[in-house]
């Protein structure tokens, strides 16, 4: 199976700081990692490769330091890594991001002399933007059927059998290939790689794709120009200061809580 996994390098710092002048996040490279659900997608890809053979390619769109995330994926099972990096791609919302990724995927497939990958995988959402839009939008640009919220993917006949974890139920879906699947928690054992893989991952050549590498790329559909949405404002959740402190002995405090419950008709 030829599998392509889209990954995103995300901010992981729980202590979020905002630049008060520009209303943007203060990003430091020390706080970056591969989006957790993308790693889950990679784990599934590795298992599928063990069962069916084939190759795993990873692709990311980002600044040059996103190479770190891609090397981590090479360590953890990917065979080849690609980075879409160009000033034109910057400032992209989900529509522009998914367009750019789609063009990158088509280009890599063409170079591999295949019409399309059998399976395109991504995490169900990213830890920083949380939109969960890129997967379905990527499927739309590539004209692929999609199955989301996967916790397990297996070969079944000529297609795939996907176990979806939804809020109120589990759904088993069968999908033809080529297709796109977004992945949540798989429950698979994490794979840390080997020393040999680590050395190989540090030495590997990551192919950088810029606009000029992709014939027919429409600049108007990428980056800021290709983004119909923009963030006008970003702010920390409202913090109320105070409220009433109830004090006293345990029984006094309980008495007061009881009164509050009575007053709010909760009893």
């Amino acid at each position, binding site marked *: 199976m030829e599998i392509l996994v889209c990954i995103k390098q995300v901010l992981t710092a729980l202590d979020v700081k905002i630049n008060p002048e520009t209303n943007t996040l203060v990003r430091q490279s020390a706080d970056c990692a591969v989006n957790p659900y993308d790693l889950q997608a990679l784990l599934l890809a590795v298992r599928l490769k063990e069962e069916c053979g084939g190759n795993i390619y990873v692709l990311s769109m980002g600044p040059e330091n996103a190479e770190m995330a891609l090397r981590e994926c090479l360590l953890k099972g990917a065979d080849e890594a690609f980075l879409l990096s160009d000033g034109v791609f910057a400032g992209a919302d989900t529509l522009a991001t998914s367009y750019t990724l789609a063009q990158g995927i088509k280009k890599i497939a063409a170079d591999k002399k295949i019409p399309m990958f059998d399976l395109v995988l991504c995490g169900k959402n990213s830890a920083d933007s949380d*939109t969960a839009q890129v997967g379905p939008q990527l499927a739309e*640009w590539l004209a692929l059927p999609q199955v989301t919220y996967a916790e397990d993917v297996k070969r079944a006949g000529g297609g795939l059998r996907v176990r979806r974890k939804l809020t109120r139920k*589990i759904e088993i879906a069968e999908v033809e290939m080529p297709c796109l699947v977004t992945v949540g928690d798989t429950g698979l054992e994490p794979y840390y790689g080997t020393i040999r893989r680590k050395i190989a991952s540090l030495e590997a050549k990551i192919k950088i794709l810029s606009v000029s590498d992709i014939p027919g790329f429409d600049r108007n559909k990428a980056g800021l120009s290709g983004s119909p949405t923009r963030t006008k404002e970003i702010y920390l959740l409202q913090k109320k200061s105070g409220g009433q402190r109830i004090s006293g002995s345990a029984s006094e405090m309980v008495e007061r809580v009881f009164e509050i419950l009575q007053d709010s008709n909760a009893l």
Partner: protein
Amino acid sequence: MKNDIWIYMEAGADGGLPVGAELIVPAKKLAGYYGGKTVAVIVGEGAKAAAEDAIFCGVDEALVIERPRKAVCNIEADANALYKLAQKYGPEVILAAATETGRDLMPRVAAKLETGLTSDCIDIGIDEEMRSVAFICPAFSGNLLAKIICEKRRPQMGTVRPGVFKKPERDEGRTGGIICEDVPHDMTAVAVKIVETIDNPEKSGLQIEDAETVVAGGRGMRSAKNFELLIELAGLLGGAVGATRPVADDGWMAQEAMIGQTGKTVRPALYIACGISGAAQHLAGIPETSVVIAINNDENAPIFNRADYGIVGDAAEILQRLIRKIKRYKND
């Protein structure tokens, strides 16, 4: 139809309100601003019946495509239908509930229309300066809120987290037009088939999203056993039990009880937070309007910034006493 505000709805389960009906309230606000109508758009089996319900809930009009539901995943067919309708009528805004279906379908439609979509909003307003809808959504695992606008392209699309807005009242006296449309789609070419569905066995009793009172616990409850106190208190108050993420991950409570950015959004009148530190990701699941009583051992816990009433103490101990008191009161 140019200034109209569309709500993509789905026929509700067991003849209940259509999914997405709660978006009628924010839709009306937008319709007032743009000088248009609110329109329910429903595709699928039972669309016409759901449209009648939508009218009783207050939409001005409904657009329906009645289609039999087969054991296939209809996302591509439904996305194509909404896309064709949007091309034909040119609405100003399309809203949908951020259910799994909404989150699968709306991004594809937005990509087809090459317009902007903002997902999982917790509020919808108007940005007067940009003359656009202001979509407010959480970002960064719930640590931040972002105001997103779709300045130039139309329709402006957004999905809204279920539970943020109140379900509307049904009034069978309301009237409105129902337009039947048809968008043919080759259903034999559908690539995704659903072969099995396993209902969540834990789903029973009061749904946490509907509870007026929620009693929730975090690590400060100290043990899984202490959660029995929460269950008992919730029972006495006729409410539901919730949990924070760390506690759900450790299996002290079911994942379904988890409240927060990556879990459920609740809208109780009263929220009792026991042994919960008050991390932003958890608070993202509770609206500003809920009255919060917090019990925590640590006087510096951030929950006290949010709580209307704060108690510094051991949650398990306080709960034990409170339960005794309530039981005595109820027996009198």
